[in-house]
């Protein structure tokens, strides 16, 4: 059930994640969700972890979701959805339900990399037929920009603030995409809203694969990144072109880079427009900025080595 990938065709589709949600203007997350929800013709049931997306999309009797949607708590979007999917299988097996349904869980990086990691790992190991999509904005944004294990090296957050002694986060991000691939699930990918067709195709492909799938999508947050309100797409493009956020997929263990930047530009280009890295552009922190570049280069080199080139 392929949807033609032209904006003209897509504009005719009914929104499954509609306008009227209350996320900050310029937030990257709703763009990610909207594209992902468009990328299938199947009926979809969504599970949502607590976080910015959840608190802003369904308030009292107002919901932005045009599909069945469930939120239970912060750390368990995957576990909750595994219950929904299991009931679906049970009723199907008993002949009480006969439609084809797809399942998507959405969680922020905090609800995915940190507190929800166990429940995500468990659901993937059990093999539930679902896609888990993490919208990664690199911090706990809903509670006011605290660090998560997805927060990049050197970033200033409210719980790892850049102070006179400690210059922001001293640890690297957790490489969750790779960790999910180590679960040996059939499909893992990294995507970005700047490359919406790539994101669209990945979700579309994932729906056609039986079993657990994981897609990690960068989702700029102007509040937490201290960037301009209209910069989300530009910043996520810079994330891709600096190779800070490479676009790739791992299908049945085979890694493929789906978008290779024409020219790999310095990661500082991605960091400069963001207030959370401002302190790194001072002479004292030159070393840390250097380390950020080294980490990006190292990861990119690893990925190139692993990837099958077309």
């Amino acid at each position: 059930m392929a949807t033609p990938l032209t904006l003209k065709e897509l504009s005719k589709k009914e929104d499954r994640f509609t306008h009227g949600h209350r996320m900050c203007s310029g937030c990257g997350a709703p763009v990610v969700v909207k594209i992902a929800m468009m990328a299938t013709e199947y009926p979809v049931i969504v599970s949502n972890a607590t976080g910015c997306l959840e608190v802003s999309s369904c308030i009292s009797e107002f919901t932005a979701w045009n599909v069945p949607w469930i939120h239970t708590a912060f750390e368990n979007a995957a576990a909750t959805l595994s219950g929904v999917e299991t009931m679906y299988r049970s009723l199907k097996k008993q002949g009480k339900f006969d439609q084809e349904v797809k399942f998507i869980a959405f969680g922020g990086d905090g609800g995915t990399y940190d507190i929800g990691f166990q429940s995500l790992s468990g659901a993937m190991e059990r093999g539930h037929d679902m896609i888990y999509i993490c919208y990664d904005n690199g911090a706990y944004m809903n509670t006011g920009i605290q660090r998560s294990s997805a927060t990049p090296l050197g970033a200033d957050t409210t719980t790892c603030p850049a102070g006179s002694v400690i210059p922001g986060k001293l640890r690297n991000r957790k490489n969750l995409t790779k960790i999910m691939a180590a679960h040996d699930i059939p499909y893992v990918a990294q995507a970005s809203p700047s490359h919406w067709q790539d994101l669209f195709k990945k979700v579309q492909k994932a729906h056609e694969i039986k079993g657990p799938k994981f897609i990690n999508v960068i989702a700029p947050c102007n509040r937490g990144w201290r960037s301009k309100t209209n910069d989300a797409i530009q910043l996520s493009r810079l994330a891709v072109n600096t190779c800070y956020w490479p676009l790739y997929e791992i299908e049945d263990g085979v890694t493929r880079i789906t978008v290779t930047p024409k020219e790999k530009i310095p990661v500082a280009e991605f960091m400069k427009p963001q207030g959370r890295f401002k302190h790194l552009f001072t002479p004292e922190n030159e070393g840390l900025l250097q380390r950020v570049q080294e980490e990006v280069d190292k990861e990119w080199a690893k990925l190139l080595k692993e990837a099958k080139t077309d």
Partner: protein
Amino acid sequence: MAKVVAVTGNEACANALRQVNPDVCGIYPITPQTDMMQRFASFIADGKVDTESILVESEHSSMSACIGAAAAGGRVITATSSQGLALMWEMLHIASGDRLPIVMPVVNRALSAPLNIHGDHSDAMGARDTGWIQLWSENGQEAYDNTIQAFRIAEHMDIRLPIMVCLDGFIISHSIERLEYLEDKQVKDFVGPFRNFLPLLDLAKPKSYGPLILTDLYHEYKRAQHEIMTKVKDVVLDVAKDFEKMSGRKYGIFESYRLEDADVAIVILNSAAGTTKDVIDQFREKGIKAGLLKPRLFRPFPFAEIADALKNAKAVCVMDRADSYGSYGPLFMEVASALYPLEKKPLLMNKIYGLGGRDYLPSHAAQVLTELNEIAKSGKVNVLKEYIGVRE
């Protein structure tokens, strides 16, 4: 025809669950519940039920998955004990707040620290304010019967709330007793088909479960939850009446044993009630009018009925197999609140017994009844809260 068997409480509950044949079951091991879910897993493996199991990685995920499954639209079960119930705590509130009729046997066990795998009521008592209905069971037969009735209560269209069926770890879960099984068909007919209410799988009318509710409405939602609880008692009694017609076994919201004309009474939950009844018989033979009240429905707590049942006693001891450090035992607090509105009320005391599987012996019951008899005569309670069977 009912079949008489010799089985453990865990086996009896597993069999009740098999007879009900739920759609989805969350499974995670914890002593002393493990054996119940293992048996149920065998029923699945042998095709004796249609149930799909979710072999979760924790109890938190078990309850999360059960919530997802119940919201999707079908009959859902799980079982747990102790630390497992404690790990579910966050999700217990969500199951009841979303009004999902999940049925969960809780094989009562102590909580860490120190680590102890034996029976007491700390787990379920810690979950008493999570909006779940709680039924308590004296023996394997009651655990079996309560498990079957639990589905009808939880799934009643006026209720739609999750329910715990409590039974004592080891004393009931692992001891073999004589038990009467109902026929599979009887249970199936009694429980009836699952009726859906706002299922997620109704794709034509998409529902949103678990919205953000702000100060303008949250208070009202919580009052609504309390109001539903006020309807539970009548449903429990109605279901019990139907159950009696089928099985010949009578259930109420509590059991009174020789209580009508009692001067002294013990209020006690679950298995310890059996031992206490024997000792009450001995005291009756000695001419002391002793009686017992054993709550069955603990949430919602039937305040008025319990006050009425105890109002003529001179002295009452509420015995708790759980503690609330720095306060009275949880059952005591309920009974004391129930008696508070009475003008003439019995003298009350609270004994904490049997924590972490410490034996509750007939001599303990005798000691309490003797003390109650003295209180009834003197009109004076010496120590309000005390531990019995404790090593000094």
